[in-house]
């Protein structure tokens, strides 16, 4: 069966510090991979999605970047965090035109 792992679960970082959130998928190959951000009481904003190694599509211009160095690994990064980067970050995977499966999320607080 397929599983998705996302870590860390919580993170507190100072403004201006770098960020690296990692997501890995097991039990499938060539998945579509997604990074979402969710502000408190709000919906899920699609940040990045990837259909293959090295292929990243950015949905919203921002202080973040994503990379896919391996087929089942998706990394969300920032060189310098802003206060506005705080939120709940979710990684997900899917097959084309099927439901997406989500990780448990990372709650990031930038202080």
């Amino acid at each position, binding site marked *: 069966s397929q599983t998705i792992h996302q870590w860390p679960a919580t993170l507190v970082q100072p403004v201006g510090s770098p960020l690296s959130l990692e997501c890995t998928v097991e039990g499938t190959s060539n998945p*579509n991979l*997604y990074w979402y951000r969710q502000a408190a009481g709000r919906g899920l*904003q*699609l940040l990045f999605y990837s259909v293959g190694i090295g292929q990243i599509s950015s949905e919203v211009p921002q202080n973040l970047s994503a990379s896919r160095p391996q087929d089942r690994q998706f990394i969300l990064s920032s060189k310098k965090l802003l206060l506005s980067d705080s939120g709940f970050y979710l990684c997900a995977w*899917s097959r084309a035109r099927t439901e*997406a499966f*989500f990780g448990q999320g990372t709650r990031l607080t930038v202080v």
Partner: protein
Amino acid sequence: GESVGLHLPTLSVQEGDNSIINCAYSNSASDYFIWYKQESGKGPQFIIDIRSNMDKRQGQRVTVLLNKTVKHLSLQIAATQPGDSAVYFCAETGRGGGSNYKLTFGKGTLLTVNP
């Protein structure tokens, strides 16, 4: 850009009643719709889906209705239980390049079930 939105941000029902959560979408090219349930502090979980060639689909205690004419989607939960309390999102697939699709979410509806 086009997005998926919801009519009501909150819904409160009595235990045992039926719940109806509504969703409006604007991308006429969307052909696959999904309902997710998200409990506090967790990632969304799949509930039920429907493709655009269908008007209705039923699952266990849940039914999704799709009205393509008015671009409206609804989730019906029968005999709502306290464990159904959560935020419910509708999502739609828009073309994301090639044969793959990105998934766009609405703002969510908070369902509260009163005992």
